[in-house]
């Protein structure tokens, strides 16, 4: 590891005037997110109500494989981190976060299956992480939008608030996966349905640019993934609390 980072340092230093760009590897990993990425005008009435009445807050995460960390325990992935953070912030109520992984399924395939996924769980909030599989398969963005829109409708009819979560920022695959159309279309659905969109892509890119995380890192290690997921979980908890307008009083 040591020699590798020296090599990286050496190459970077060689390039004239690049000194400023040599990333400060020792920068503290605060993984702060600018406020505008965590504010939304779309409310989460069901969540607000559950918290106000002191009931259990049931959150269901529906996602593809990027909602988990392969070869790490589920406790390290963002849904579990979200649960931990929310429990800290909302000690007066019970918070349950469950996960339904739907790997390799497009939004359309998942949308058709949502009734079954939600059935019995009656979540107050569904966080639907989607877009990755569709982008990888270059599904027609119009069809993708339609599918997400239908899916959100189904979830709302089932009595849940919905948050959409878009793709990861994955710089290494940028030349292979065309991400923008899917992000744009998810934003459109969020606007039309007036639901919050958790912009995972922009947030992770921000971290990469701030130097919190080096997302180009080819590491085989699991640490980076764990830290990113921890930060995602915390950002998501802030996002939910903001969207549901939970006052500090309720948070205590």
């Amino acid at each position, binding site marked *: 590891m040591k020699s590798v980072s020296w090599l*990286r340092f050496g*190459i*970077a230093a060689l*390039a004239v*005037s*690049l000194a*400023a*760009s*040599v*990333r400060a590897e020792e920068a503290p990993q605060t993984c702060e997110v600018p406020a*505008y990425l965590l*504010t939304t*005008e779309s409310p989460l009435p069901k969540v607000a109500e559950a918290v106000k009445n002191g009931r259990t807050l049931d959150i269901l995460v529906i996602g*593809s*494989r*990027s909602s988990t*960390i*392969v*070869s790490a325990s589920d406790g390290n992935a963002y849904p579990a981190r979200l649960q931990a953070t929310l429990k800290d912030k909302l000690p007066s109520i019970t918070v349950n976060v469950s996960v339904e992984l739907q790997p390799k399924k497009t939004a359309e395939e998942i949308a058709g299956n949502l009734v079954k996924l939600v059935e019995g769980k009656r979540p107050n909030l569904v966080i639907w992480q989607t877009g*990755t*599989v569709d982008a*990888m*398969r*270059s599904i*027609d*963005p*119009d069809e993708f*939008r339609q599918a997400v829109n239908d899916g959100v409708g189904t979830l709302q009819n089932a009595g849940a608030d919905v948050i959409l979560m878009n793709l*990861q920022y*994955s*710089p*290494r*695959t*940028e*030349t*292979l*996966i*065309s991400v923008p*159309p899917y992000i*744009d*279309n998810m934003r*459109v659905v969020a*606007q*039309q349905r007036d639901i919050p969109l958790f912009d995972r892509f922009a947030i992770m*890119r921000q971290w*990469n*640019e701030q*130097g919190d995380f*080096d*997302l*180009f*890192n*080819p*590491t*085989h*290690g*699991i640490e*980076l*993934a764990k830290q*990113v997921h921890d930060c995602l979980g915390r950002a998501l908890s802030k996002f939910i609390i903001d969207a549901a307008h939970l006052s500090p009083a309720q948070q205590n």
Partner: protein
Amino acid sequence: MPAPAAETAAAASPAAPVSTAAPKITSKISFPAVGERELRLDLFRGLALWLIFIDHLPPNLLTWFTIRNYGFSDATEIFIFISGYTAAFVYGRAMEDAGFIVATARILRRVWQIYVAHVFLFTIFLAEISYVATSFENPLYTEEMGIMDFLKQPDVTIVQALILRFRPVNMDVLPLYIVLMLFLPLILWLMRWRPDFTLALSVVLYAVTWEFDLYLSAYPNGFWAFNPFAWQLLFVFGAWCALGGAKRMSRILNSPVTLGICVAYLVAAFFVTLTWYIPQLGHLMPRRIEQWMYPIDKTDLDVLRFAHFLALAALTVHYLPKDWPLLKSRWLRPLIVCGQHSLEIFCLGVFLAFAGHFVLAEVSGGAMMHAMISLCGILAMWGVASLISWYKREADKGAARKGVRANADLAGGG
């Protein structure tokens, strides 16, 4: 520019007898006066090439200078329009002078060049991707890395790439261009007969594409990111302008009403794009309009994008005269010289974007590095373009001595 465009345009391959071709029955189209090279075309094509390069890199400081942040259309529109314009200009004249067959042959030769360039870029891309696939195993991206699965079937992948069905991101423009150029003989032939009718046909095809959702499929799934059925409109429109349409339109173009509409539209578009970057402004946008307007489709060349390009073009033509002194200054030289060798520089830009991704990944990724890579890339484009210019100049000198002229310069990428 030592080899004047007019000669280039009149060009004709050495074998083609000049002027003895078919009698000029085709008064339907008029060519601009044989004279100086239209530097504005070179300027804006060069600009488009730079912007495309910057847009192909991950977002960075310079990205804020690209026009897609200030309106609906982006550099692709400029590139395709100017390509249509110059292609029609050069090969239309060839068709006048040497006849349909010879002009078609020259166009096909050009198509072949573009195709070879595309395959060459694909090879470089494949090398880069194979490297990434074998060296990158970050558990954070297990899902996304699944995209590399195509490498497990090189036989299928490579054949699909050769028939233009498998195209990596950012390698969509050349295939579009190949298809458009393939149809250029037909377009020119129709234009010689009835230019306005040809343009109308193109509009009809565009409308039909939207109505019936025509598209070309891609491999392993999906569709062409630039739908040729829709984007042909810009190309044909460019051709129509080159063959006299622009002249006939000039009165409309110069009327204050048109200019007012253009300005109003551009300002409105600017405001809309502003709401993408400053979400706090979002609530100022009426919901109705949002629902009607989004998504603004790039694949099928959304009408809003097309209109945005038209407005930009109209204002540019009006406020930037042909004899604008700055066109001859050395400050705009880098752009103009890039625009004059657009196929080469376009390919170089795609390659540099790959290389830029690679450096960002392997060396360091800070914002400074990003900006440096963009700048170095542009300098490289300028350098290579100057080199090609120099070479052509020398080659032309040699050729002139032997009395041979064969230079498809203005056709550049076109």
